[in-house]
């Protein structure tokens, strides 16, 4: 693990009014590493991500990242004004391209090339997440920051999306920092899990964290059991339209 450290947060604290949202939170993401932030609603996960992205200034603590670090950000959701006519292709063209990456190639990578000329407002939740992922990839990112990437995606689609993110990580050798509620799906592909509830409750390898008493206290035994159960493999696979297809990954 002597890969390049992409971002290092040290003792981040922030308060909104009287509420201590983050208390001395430290984390780091290295090249090629997947770090997953988990935690209950209102635990400060999105706030932490916004601080790391530089959208919000912490009250104390520091963020260190290399100069000109290319970050691809996938926000939690995208609200498109009803008065704004915009196609998927035009939306991706809005990105400031750090290097000339053809939009076709990016759309192919996230498997939504067929949506290129569709209106952004007409596509489904799952397709929208892939469009946002494509926008993040347009930055040729060294670090991908994903805020609940599988939000609004059906169960079969979620597994696909996480597989895609994992493929992207290995293909581009980028670091990934993501917030996720889908523990059972991300555990297998995560190098480090950070369990956050205003402060870091526990962190480490997924198996290690799922046994940790503070993790069990936060999520209960039931959720932990689900993790143990989820070791079987499907013998088939669904594509985007729901059709059964032969195994392609694994």
């Amino acid at each position, binding site marked *: 693990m002597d890969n390049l450290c992409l971002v290092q947060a040290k003792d981040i604290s922030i308060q909104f009014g009287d509420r201590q949202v983050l208390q001395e939170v430290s984390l780091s993401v290295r090249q090629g590493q997947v770090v997953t932030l988990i935690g209950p609603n209102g635990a400060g996960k999105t706030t932490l991500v916004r601080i790391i992205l530089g959208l919000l200034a912490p009250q104390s603590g520091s963020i260190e990242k290399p100069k000109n670090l290319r970050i691809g950000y996938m*926000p939690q959701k995208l609200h498109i004004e009803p*008065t*704004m006519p915009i196609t998927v292709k035009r939306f991706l063209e809005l990105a400031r391209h750090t290097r000339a990456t053809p939009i076709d190639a990016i759309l192919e990578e996230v498997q939504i090339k067929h949506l290129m000329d569709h209106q952004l407002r007409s596509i489904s939740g799952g397709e929208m997440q892939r469009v946002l992922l494509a926008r993040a990839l347009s930055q040729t990112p060294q670090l991908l920051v994903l805020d609940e990437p599988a939000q609004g995606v059906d169960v079969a689609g979620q597994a696909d999306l996480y597989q895609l993110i994992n493929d992207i990580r290995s293909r581009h050798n980028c670091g990934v920092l993501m917030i996720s509620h889908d523990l059972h799906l991300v555990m297998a592909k995560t190098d480090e899990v950070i369990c956050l509830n205003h402060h870091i409750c526990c962190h480490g390898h997924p198996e290690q964290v799922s046994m940790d008493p503070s993790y069990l206290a936060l999520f209960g035994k039931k959720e932990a059991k689900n993790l143990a159960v989820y070791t079987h493999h499907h013998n088939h696979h669904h594509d985007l339209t729901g059709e059964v297809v032969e195994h392609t990954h694994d």
Partner: protein
Amino acid sequence: MTDFILRALLAGLCIAIVAGPLGAFVVWRRMSYFGDTLAHSSLLGIAIGILLDINLQLAVIASSVLFAVILILLQRNKTLSTDTLLGILAHSTLAFGMLILSLSSAVQINLVGYLFGDLLTISTVDLWWIAGCAAVVATLLAVYWNSLLAVTVHEELARVEGVPVDRLHAMMVLMVALLIAVSMKIIGVLLITSLLIIPPAAARRLAETPEQMALGASVVGGLAVCGGLLMSYYLDTPAGPSIVVAACAFFLLSYLAPALLGRRVQ
């Protein structure tokens, strides 16, 4: 046709062409009340200009820009909601302007002309002001188009990608202020925002991309100016309301035409 109507037509077309794309941003960013506030405050600019006996066009531009800056600053330290803030500023500046005008009774001014626009008042100098400011705004829009659009679609995404969001937002507000200041004479304080709102709204139905909507709005605005001024010339109606009525007709047409045509096909 006489000279004054030609001047008014040229001035109106300059404004409409720029108001199309700028107005599209006003619609997308939900800034219409913002435009109204700036327009109302420009009446205070006129009153102060008359009081101090300085060039009225300059006074209006200066006051619009000043109020735009005040609005940008007030918006940043969110103590009041933007909506409330705009409501307070819009009406108190209008009231102050009217008070000052009524007290300085030494000068008789054509108040209705300022409120609703007057064709006869467009001089050659005014035309140059309008053309110059329209050219500046059009150039800025063309140069920063993609960044402005990125900020409008998703501000945080644009910020992470390195777009200077705050500067672009300020530029947008100043452009709206400038256009409103120069077009006040022809369309009037009370109706000016409609030229920013109605043409983009009319173009929305037929547009597939932001660019189509922006350029479509320019076309609709240009047609509305031509139609409105013709009406004003032949029927002796006030310029501002005539242009707005024409724009409104295009808006209704764009919404009703697809439905009517669709029915005929079935």
